[in-house]
């Protein structure tokens, strides 16, 4: 049964090598591997649901020396999200890359990114988090540069430089942790960690690194050019998955491993940065001239919301209210993952059909590409946080927690952020529905438009209506202080 943990990492890794050896069979290898990863992720979620936390020490080497893999509610549910989004993006990619050379380069890197994401989510020790964080970063940069334009390469180089600085800071934090506690295993750390200066220094370094990686304001500047200039399937993965796993680490470190060192002041600072990110990102999205740039700035804003939850979680005592808030932050992250990948895939369809993605010139899109316009609207609903999307429930919980803890300051931030999101979504839709001189195309667009539609439907309908189970699944006990299982 513990083998379950190995497959989500091993399958894409092997497939990546296969795709490198057989470049012409990339579509087939990638599709099969993505499907297999999805099955193994679903199986893992099922098994965690039945048995609780699953852990394995690879090769029988005990933690401390060996590589420990762990899956709990939080990591397995994110793993499932990654697997679903990756499969749909993969299906779209078979249509997107019409150049055989680029497509042959895409698959090995893409599968490697998938393996790295899964390894990060399943990692049980802090040093492996550094390694997987680097693997995610390197493959993401290489994928981002796939387009080959000058802008894409400049953005990729900047992304790489900033990302490497972030991982260096994270690694320096790992050194301090090892010096202070002599272990890097997260379960062991959670039980020995104390509230003292060495912990603060380590946490500060690691958090700084992760803030760069998760593009929290003011460290967000690398994100819009990198995400807007990558090929559409890659942008979707960068925005939906890559920044999300960095946030997962923030959540994991602060709420699972170093709970004792989480001071309200620190959480407030992160929350304030998140609030600025919400407002600034939404404002820039509203002013963005291009659809993909809009989507990238909207990612900056949506990540800001995730950080708003930290001061609330720090302020709530253990109990149902905190469980509700914790479930909400995960639901927010999941919904954004699906909605943003849908939006980027939709933008990709428009960019390829129209030859550009300038918002002002989208006139006629609604008639030419009705399915894709529907996708834009659906993912817009999730980005604004209208019912029945998952974001609506999450924002509801966010406001409830703000009232509960008396942290009223976040309420106007959420209100203004949502209004700005409404404005930028309707700006796009307004132009898309405007009359234009585009030819109408066939409705059945198959592999080109349906993946985005599926993702948008999950974000707006499935996660909104069936989110109840998520709270039970996350099993707050697994996140209690000291990591008691």
């Amino acid at each position, binding site marked *: 049964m513990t083998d379950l943990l190995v497959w989500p990492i091993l399958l894409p890794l092997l497939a990546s090598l296969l795709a490198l050896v057989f470049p012409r069979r990339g579509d087939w290898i990638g599709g099969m591997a993505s499907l297999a990863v999805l099955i193994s992720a679903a199986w893992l979620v099922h098994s965690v649901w039945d048995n609780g936390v699953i852990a394995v020490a690879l090769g029988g080497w005990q933690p401390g020396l060996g590589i420990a893999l762990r899956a709990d509610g939080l990591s397995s549910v994110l793993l499932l999200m990654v697997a679903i989004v990756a499969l749909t993006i993969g299906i779209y990619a078979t249509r997107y890359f019409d150049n055989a050379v680029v497509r042959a380069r895409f698959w090995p890197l893409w599968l490697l990114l998938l393996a790295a994401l899964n390894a990060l989510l399943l990692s049980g020790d802090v*040093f492996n988090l550094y390694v997987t964080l680097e693997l995610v*970063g390197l493959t993401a940069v290489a994928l981002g540069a796939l387009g080959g334009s000058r802008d894409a*390469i400049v953005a990729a*180089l900047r992304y*790489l430089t900033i990302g490497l600085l972030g991982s*260096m800071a994270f690694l*320096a934090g*790992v*050194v301090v942790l*090892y010096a202070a506690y002599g272990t890097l295993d997260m379960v062991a750390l959670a039980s020995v960690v104390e509230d003292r200066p060495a912990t603060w220094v380590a946490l500060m370094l690691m958090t700084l690194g992760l803030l760069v990686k998760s593009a929290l304001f003011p460290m967000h500047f690398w994100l819009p050019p990198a995400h807007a200039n990558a090929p559409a399937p890659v942008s979707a993965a960068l925005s939906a998955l890559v920044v999300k796993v960095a946030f997962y680490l923030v959540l994991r470190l602060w709420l699972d491993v170093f709970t004792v060192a989480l001071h309200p002041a620190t959480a407030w600072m992160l929350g304030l940065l998140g609030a600025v990110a919400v407002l600034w990102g939404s404002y820039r999205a509203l002013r963005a001239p291009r659809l993909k740039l809009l989507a990238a700035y909207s990612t900056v804003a949506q990540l800001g919301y995730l950080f708003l939850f930290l001061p609330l979680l720090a302020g709530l005592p253990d109990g149902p209210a905190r469980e509700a808030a914790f479930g909400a932050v995960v639901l927010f992250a999941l919904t954004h993952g699906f909605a943003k990948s849908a939006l980027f895939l939709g933008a990709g369809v428009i960019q390829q059909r129209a030859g550009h993605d300038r918002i002002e010139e989208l006139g006629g899109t609604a008639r030419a590409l009705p399915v894709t316009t529907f996708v834009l609207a659906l993912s817009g609903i999730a980005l604004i946080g209208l019912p029945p999307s998952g974001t609506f429930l999450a924002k509801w919980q966010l406001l409830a927690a703000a009232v509960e803890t008396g942290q009223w300051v976040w309420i106007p931030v959420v209100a203004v952020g949502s209004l700005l999101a409404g404005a930028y979504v309707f700006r796009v839709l307004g132009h898309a529905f405007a009359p234009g001189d585009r030819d109408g195309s066939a409705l059945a667009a198959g592999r080109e438009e349906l993946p985005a539609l599926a993702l948008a439907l999950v974000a707006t309908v499935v996660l909104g209506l069936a989110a109840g189970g998520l709270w039970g699944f996350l099993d707050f006990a697994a996140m209690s202080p000291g990591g008691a299982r």
Partner: protein
Amino acid sequence: MLATTIIYGFAGICLFVLGLRGVLLHTTALARILALNVCGAGVFLLFVVLAYRGAGMTPDPVPHALVLTGIVVAVSATALALALARRLREIDHD
């Protein structure tokens, strides 16, 4: 023993900060990549200091294993950065 640890540890921190400064202040790609490596060397030196347990004692093997992994990662990252920088030069010279 303590003095040695402090000297090397301090050197590691200095390298880290120097590298950081270089990455943030330089504008040319090559200078930044080199600065990143200086920064990384600082962190790796800290790992080496950590492994030292005094004269005549066997060093702690775990930091050594970690630093080797770290160096491999740093080399690949540098290779990718150099490849991107070279591609950029090619585009600019065409």
